[in-house]
């Protein structure tokens, strides 16, 4: 029982870190441009492919990681320059649709390149040794990737927070998020600030991509879709556009996600005879073991409820309504 609970907590924290890395990237860009960058998940996918192909090529790990981060950042910058800058300030739905299209390009581009490299659509990810295996603490065994994921996630997120609050570029991002034209009028180089936000966002996505691929063990061009949706949910829970909110929302989502699985398995993990057969039956009826497979549906139901009742997020409180 203890072991089970601890493992679920570790799962939640690890998933939370992954979502946080993604959600902060979404929130950064949403804050400045009011753009929900759906292609963010595909940027993450591209990072995983960059890492995989670098490792396949026999490059040492640090070099492979460098290529992964650097390449992803370049792609993030290119997307901003080519697709998003021309429609900056346009209708929000147009920007959202553009990000879908960008996602399609990244997916199909990856598909095309893997085909040209004579690789199958689904390939095994060459997880680096440091992320393989488990850490044993007493009776609890935790996959290394989860520990590293949680640890590195924390370090990176703290770094991002410091950058955003302590540097001029960070302050400029805040200012641009508050009022873009006014930020331009004080002389902030908006194009640079937006580019910096995309670069940072892509770098965070690349770390997320490595963690995701290492956990999943396999990669395909479509793997970004679900994580970006989850990151979006995390950002909504935290109050969209708020960076600390995105982090809090991500960990909240991590915990929220393990609940259906945990409840679905609750009857199985109770020691035999701990409860009467009637209660056991009742538990199995209320929490069928299939509950875990409905996890995503439950999470999205929660998203819809959040959007309806607390659109400003759990931290948002009663912010000013959108009124004429």
């Amino acid at each position: 029982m203890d072991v089970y609970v601890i493992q679920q907590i570790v799962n939640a924290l690890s998933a939370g870190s992954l979502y946080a890395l993604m959600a902060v990237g979404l929130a950064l860009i949403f804050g400045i441009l009011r753009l929900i960058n759906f292609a963010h998940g595909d940027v993450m996918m591209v990072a995983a492919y960059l890492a995989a192909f670098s490792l396949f090529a026999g490059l040492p790990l640090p070099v492979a990681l460098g290529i992964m981060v650097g390449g992803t950042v370049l792609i993030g910058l290119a997307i901003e320059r080519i697709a998003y800058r021309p429609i900056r300030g346009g209708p929000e739905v147009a920007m959202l649709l553009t990000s879908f299209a960008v996602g399609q390009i990244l997916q199909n581009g990856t598909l095309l390149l893997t085909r040209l490299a004579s690789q199958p659509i689904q390939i095994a990810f060459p997880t680096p040794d440091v992320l393989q295996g488990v850490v044993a603490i007493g009776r609890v065994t935790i996959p290394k990737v989860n520990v590293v994921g949680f640890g590195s996630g924390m370090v990176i997120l703290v770094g991002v927070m410091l950058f955003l609050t302590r540097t001029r570029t960070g302050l400029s991002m805040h200012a641009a998020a508050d009022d873009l034209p006014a930020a331009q009028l004080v002389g902030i180089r908006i194009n640079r600030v937006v580019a910096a936000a995309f670069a940072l966002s892509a770098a965070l996505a690349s770390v997320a991509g490595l963690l995701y691929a290492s956990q999943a063990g396999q990669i395909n061009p479509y793997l970004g879709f679900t994580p970006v949706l989850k990151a979006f949910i995390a950002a909504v829970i935290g109050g969209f556009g708020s960076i600390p909110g995105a982090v809090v929302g991500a960990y909240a989502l991590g915990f929220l996600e393990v609940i259906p699985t945990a409840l679905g398995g609750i009857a199985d993990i109770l020691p035999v005879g701990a409860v009467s057969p009637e209660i056991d039956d009742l538990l199995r009826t209320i929490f069928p073991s299939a509950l875990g497979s409905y996890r995503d549906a439950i999470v999205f139901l929660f998203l819809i409820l959040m959007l309806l009742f607390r659109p400003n997020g759990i931290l948002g409180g009663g912010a000013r309504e959108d009124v004429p």
Partner: protein
Amino acid sequence: MLELVDLHVAYGNIRALRGISMRVESGELVALIGSNGAGKSTTLKAISGLLRPTSGRILFEGEDISRASTDRIVSLGISQCPEGRRVFARLTVRENLLLGGITRPMSEVRSDLASTTELFPRLGERMGQVAGTLSGGEQQMLAIGRALMSRPRLLILDEPSLGLAPLMVERIFEVIDGLKDRGLTMLLVEQNVHHALDSADRAYVLETGTITLEGPADMLRHDPEVEHSYLGR
């Protein structure tokens, strides 16, 4: 110091400015007046580089800035205090002021904080406060203070008295007069034509994208056309 030469600006098919020419000399306070939709905001946006003119030139100390980026224009010495104040509502007063000096080295900016708060003691008392919680008048002070942080040689004020209590309007114009006494060059767009013509040296009247009148402020104040259309006498 600033000269607009036959400036045309269009939004799509709509011609917002149809060839306006005006100038602001060093040390002058020039007012630009006109009703809504006459093209005042468009003129200011073109000067600050937020809009690209379709033709014509904008010269600042002889250099053509009509194609320059906004940050370049700010660093050349033109600072604009936008209509509706537009302070960074979620940042503190200090952060707002620091960002006002973004085009200059950090060390200089820090030392300028003191002189700005001297000018606006109310801001000095509220350095750590989030700008969104300031009153309308205080936000206007902050917006002017922020614009001054770039050490402009030309300060552009867009409707600084808009929506303020008459009492606060008086204060704002006291500040403007004070800046003028220090020798700062200013271009003022203002719907409060009485006040604007009281403070200004010269003025231009803009109507449907063309300049219909120009001259010393005293003269315009007694122009029958201006009296009828803008002063309501």
